[in-house]
């Protein structure tokens, strides 16, 4: 058997052997390729866009093909926060709190018209947060009402492209990402207001 292997090696051109069996890459590309292939999203759907997000996870449009198919219920284990659905002023401190609880490096994908600029509630929505980028930094915007699953998949691709562009040695830029966006702190109410 060893003779057969040696014969096989002797008969082949070393250049083509190298081409077929050796990969050269940068550490940046390799590490980022591994990172982008396993972006774990946080299950965060508030309204109708959540239905399209669920459809994207399901078997027809399957987000798991791209590594993003296990949504984490806890922000502590999530890389990507897909904010799908209208965010109210009542919900806004909770969204901010979940974003703060996600560990770095984290990304935010704003899905749907409501979280981009208020959507259909932009003019008369007194209680609608006019765009979730008023409280957290957003990396990718996916417009639509709701966006089709293909559009959400493209949004995920844009997040992956962002990941591929990062460099390990660029630690200052990575460290300078805002950890608490604009320092706004809310105190969430701990229960119903006290009766007078």
């Amino acid at each position, binding site marked *: 058997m060893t003779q057969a292997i040696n014969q096989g090696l002797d008969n082949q051109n070393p250049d083509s052997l190298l081409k077929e069996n050796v990969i050269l890459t940068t550490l940046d590309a390799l590490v980022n390729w591994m990172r982008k292939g396993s972006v774990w999203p946080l299950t965060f759907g508030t309204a109708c866009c959540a239905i399209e997000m669920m459809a994207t996870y399901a078997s027809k449009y399957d987000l798991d093909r791209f590594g993003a198919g296990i949504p984490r219920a806890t922000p502590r284990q999530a890389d990507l926060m897909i904010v799908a659905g209208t965010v109210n*002023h*009542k919900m806004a401190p909770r969204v901010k709190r979940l974003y703060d609880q996600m560990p770095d490096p984290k990304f935010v994908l704003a899905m749907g018209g409501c979280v981009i*600029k208020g959507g259909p509630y932009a003019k008369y929505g*007194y*209680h609608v947060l*006019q765009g979730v980028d008023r409280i957290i930094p957003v990396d990718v915007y996916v417009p639509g009402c709701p966006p089709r699953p293909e559009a959400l998949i493209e949004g995920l691709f844009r997040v992956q492209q962002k990941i591929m562009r990062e460099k390990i040695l660029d630690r200052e830029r990575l460290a300078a990402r805002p950890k608490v966006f604009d320092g*706004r702190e*809310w105190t969430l*109410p701990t229960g119903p*207001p006290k009766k007078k």
Partner: protein
Amino acid sequence: MDTSQVFAAIRERFGGAIVEENTTNRDPFVKVAPASLHDVMAFLRDDPRFRCDLLSLVSGVDYGDDLGVVYHAESTSLGHVVVVKADLPRAKAEVATVSDLWSAANWHEREAFDLVGITFTGHPNLVRILTAEDWVGHPLRKDYQFPTEYHGIVCEFEGIHDGTWAEHTGEQLG
């Protein structure tokens, strides 16, 4: 059971409390004085002729001058719907709660309090239910002022209410 018979029975028992009665609408209703509302609703629930065991809806209304409440009480066994209304003065919009008769009224009355500002006396937990706990104002009133900011967040889409939207975005409002 025919609604006119229901109204006749209410008139017989609470004659003085009825303010208005309308049987020609698609949804006939009887409007009572707010002070006797709780007794009328208890009568509708307990009387064996009507047995309104399901409260479908409690709505708060702003009629422009006055506020009001509308109750839709249904009977699952006898199959009729009774609509009872009450007009409340804007300065003192108070009415007794019916959450001790039907538990469903608990959240419906919280919504009417939150959005229209009607106080339900005797309610076990009358706090805001839809808007944030420290929201100011009652949004579904006709004289509601749109907030400009909430905890430092700008509430409105820039310039949409004072007409300067085109300057902010460079686009034209249709």
